[in-house]
Structure formats: structure tokens, C-alpha cells
């Protein structure tokens, strides 16, 4: 910081001050000052201001600016990116802005059945677990479940339930979450959907049994957090996010194991006509679009 500070202070009156009226403008802001400003903005704004001039462009690439935007455990997160020696070499060379940009794109793990990414504006972790990462009772029995390829899933495939007595979908994930509160959702669709002549059509031919008893949602963590809730599935024809619960991560350097499930195991009636796309984890309060249903707390049958 030494060199530019003395210039600014006009040490010994030797500063190269502009001639005439002191028309100092934002364009004269040195790179380090610009970087101090950018520190207070969010990443899309930083990237936008990179276009202003050389100083802003340099500042917009400064490591210390991006280090402040990255989650505290970004080194752990980067371990999931790239594989082997080549991946390690690339990670070592990457600047902090590059790291942020890479983490803002989905990073697959768990053999491609799971992925996480950073929300661009806030730099918080989001996660998606595909139906293939979940343990679904009866998934191998084609009388009950099938995998349906579709572009409506970020994993290109959903699990479709025709009919079953024992409906249970269980999942778990072991991860070091940056400090924060997160919400976990099941992305579910009542009814089958398909494209015909370019239009999206829905069939509720198999939809039944969901009005008899509510579905129970459960979420627990390895550090003792526990949520139990239930609600009736509704809104055939559109994707609904059912809020299974929230959890708090307080140790970014410690792995937390999450266990969650969605079940309706009352065997006095069958149920069916349901698509399970994925389980989603978002920072609490960050979801704006998509239909979200909050289930009621409590565990009674």
C-alpha cells in the first residue's frame, strides 16, 4: 500500500496533481481503493463493475475481494472439483475469483447422483440429491417404481411411482456445510407428465391414495437436530417443494451427516401416481420461486 498512499497524500507537495481545477473523478480511483469498494458489493455487481476501467477491472480480479465472498471452507469444497493430479494442479493455480466462478457452477459428487453449487449473489451453498441418490423402498420392482428420463429434472431422470402400499423415500448426505441455517425440500410431482406435439401434458391416471393419510417428513442431523412433520400431498400437475425441515450448521470444518425421509407406510391403502425428482437443500429463506409447501409439525399417525 506504501507507494500509492504517498502519492495520494502529496508527500512534500510532489504529488502529480492534475493541472487546473482539481477535477478528480472516480476514474482516478486507484485499484486498491476500487477493490475496497468492491468488497462491499456482491459478486454479480463486482463482475459488472469490472467493465468500468483498468483499475476496476484489476480490482474485480483481486484475490482478497473474492476470498471475502467465498465460504469459509472453500478449500474443502474445491476438493470435489476435478480429479486426480490434474485437478490438484489446477486447483493450486486458480485465483480466488476463478474458484468462486467454478463453485458457482454445479459440482457433482457421489458418482454424479448429487451436486452442490454456490448461490452466485450470496456465496452460500445449495445442494441437490437425485432420486438415484435416495433409497426408495421397492425401487427395483417395476410393478411399483420406474425411472423416467425427463428434462424437467436437473439430473435428467425422476422416479415414477405407479402404485405401492409402503411408500418410503430415505436419503442421507455427509458434508461440511458452511455456517448457516438450511432448509431441506423434496421435489415432488403428482401425476405423470409428458410432451406431445411440443406441449406439456399431464396424466393423473395413477394418482390415488394421497388424500387418505398425510405423508410424514423427517430430518435429523448427526449433532442431534431433529424435525418431524406431515402434510397431505397436493397440486397435481406441477412440481411442488415439500419443506421437510431446517437444520443449522455451525462447524464448517466438521462433516455433518443428514438423514431425511418422506414416507406414507399405512398399509391399509395403496398410493401412487407420483414423481420424485430430488431432494434440495437451500439456505433458509433463499427460495423465492417454485411452489413450496410447509408441512405441519408433529408426528401423530
Amino acid at each position, binding site marked *: 500500500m506504501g507507494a500509492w498512499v504517498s502519492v495520494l497524500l502529496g508527500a512534500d507537495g510532489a504529488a502529480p496533481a492534475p493541472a487546473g481545477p482539481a477535477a478528480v*473523478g472516480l476514474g482516478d480511483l486507484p485499484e486498491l481503493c476500487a477493490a475496497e*469498494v468492491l468488497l462491499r458489493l456482491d459478486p454479480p455487481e463486482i463482475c459488472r463493475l469490472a467493465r468500468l476501467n483498468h483499475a476496476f477491472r484489476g480490482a474485480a480480479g483481486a484475490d482478497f475481494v473474492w476470498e471475502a465472498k467465498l465460504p469459509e471452507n472453500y478449500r474443502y469444497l474445491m476438493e470435489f472439483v476435478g480429479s486426480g493430479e490434474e485437478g490438484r494442479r489446477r486447483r493450486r493455480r486458480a485465483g480466488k475469483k476463478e474458484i468462486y466462478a467454478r463453485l458457482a457452477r454445479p459440482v457433482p459428487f457421489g458418482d454424479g447422483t448429487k451436486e452442490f453449487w454456490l448461490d452466485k449473489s450470496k456465496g452460500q451453498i445449495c445442494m441437490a440429491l437425485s432420486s438415484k441418490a435416495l433409497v426408495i423402498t421397492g425401487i427395483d420392482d417395476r410393478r411399483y417404481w420406474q425411472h423416467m428420463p425427463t428434462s424437467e429434472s436437473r439430473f435428467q431422470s425422476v422416479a415414477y411411482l405407479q402404485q405401492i402400499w409402503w411408500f418410503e423415500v430415505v436419503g442421507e448426505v455427509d458434508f461440511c456445510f458452511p455456517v448457516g441455517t438450511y432448509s431441506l425440500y423434496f421435489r415432488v410431482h403428482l401425476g405423470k407428465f409428458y410432451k406431445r406435439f411440443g406441449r406439456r401434458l399431464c396424466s393423473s391416471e395413477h394418482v390415488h391414495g394421497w388424500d387418505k393419510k398425510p405423508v410424514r417428513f423427517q430430518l435429523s442431523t448427526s449433532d442431534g437436530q431433529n424435525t418431524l412433520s406431515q402434510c397431505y400431498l397436493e397440486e397435481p400437475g406441477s412440481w411442488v417443494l415439500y419443506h421437510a425441515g431446517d437444520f443449522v450448521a455451525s462447524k464448517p470444518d466438521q462433516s455433518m451427516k443428514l438423514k431425511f425421509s418422506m414416507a406414507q407406510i399405512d398399509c391399509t391403502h395403496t398410493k401412487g401416481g407420483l414423481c420424485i425428482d430430488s431432494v434440495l437443500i437451500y439456505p433458509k429463506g433463499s427460495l423465492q420461486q417454485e411452489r413450496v409447501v410447509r408441512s405441519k409439525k408433529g408426528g401423530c399417525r
Partner: protein
Amino acid sequence: FCEICLTNNCDGSAGKIATMIALVSSDNERFEVSEEAASQSQTIRNMIEDGCADGGIPLPNVTSSVLAKVLEYCNKHAATTTPDAASTEAVIGSAGTRAVLGPARHGPVVLRAVPCRAAGRRCPEGCRLDEGQDAGADQATFKIENDFRPEDVEKIRKENAWAFEE
């Protein structure tokens, strides 16, 4: 060195019958400045007029080194009547985050302690970073000269495109 206007080239006019106001930095250093200089800040002027400035005005978010620079600026401009450099002050950011930029003489951190409306200065209104405004429009808004070659512009667009993808 004149301790009243904090410059080496004081002509004596600023301090003749100057009332002194004390500004206290976060690290408890007192800076005595002329009331005229301190009044360039609307906030401080209000406090002086309300009679709250007697024991000194605390500035808990400004360190002494930073305050010294700010006062140098204020004293320099107390003597002039033309609003010039301050018209480059701008507030940028979207709802929820604000960064106040100012003349290059002081880092932007400094200006967070100095209200945008230094007496008599006109600030351009806050500029929201609206979607879709192109680089040229941003440069015009902040009065920044484009110092990029056309091939640089495309490079910059490419290296930042990731931040705007869905």
C-alpha cells in the same frame, strides 16, 4: 504548519476568529478543527447547531489516520466556493448494500464516515445497478473514461459472463 486548517499554506483567513470544534476518532485522538471546516458535514453542522458539539464529536467508525486525511480535504475545500471534486461522489449498489465512492484523494473507506451531503455540494443521485445497462452507460453514469481497447472489452465480457448466467 497551521494547526487550525491543517495545511502548510494557510493564509490566516480561515482561523482568524474561528470557533474550534473537536472531532474524536475511534482511537480517541482529538482533532481540533475550525467550525467552518467541520460544518461541511451536514451531520456535524446539525450537531453544532443543536449544541451537542461541546464535549467533542465522537466519530466511532473513523480512525485517526483516516480522519486526518478527511480533515485535510475538508479544510482545503472550506476555503473554496466552487463545488468541484465533490460532484464526483456517487453512491452505488443495489438495495441492501451501499458503497460510497469519492475523490481519489481518499479511499472509499474514509467516505463512509463523511456524509455524502457535505454542505453545499451536490451529489449525483444514487445510481442503482439496473440489469441490462451496458458498460458505456455505467461509464457515463460514473463519469469514467473508457481506457479499454475494443478487444479488451470482449475479453472482459467473457471472463465475467459466468456471474450473469442462469
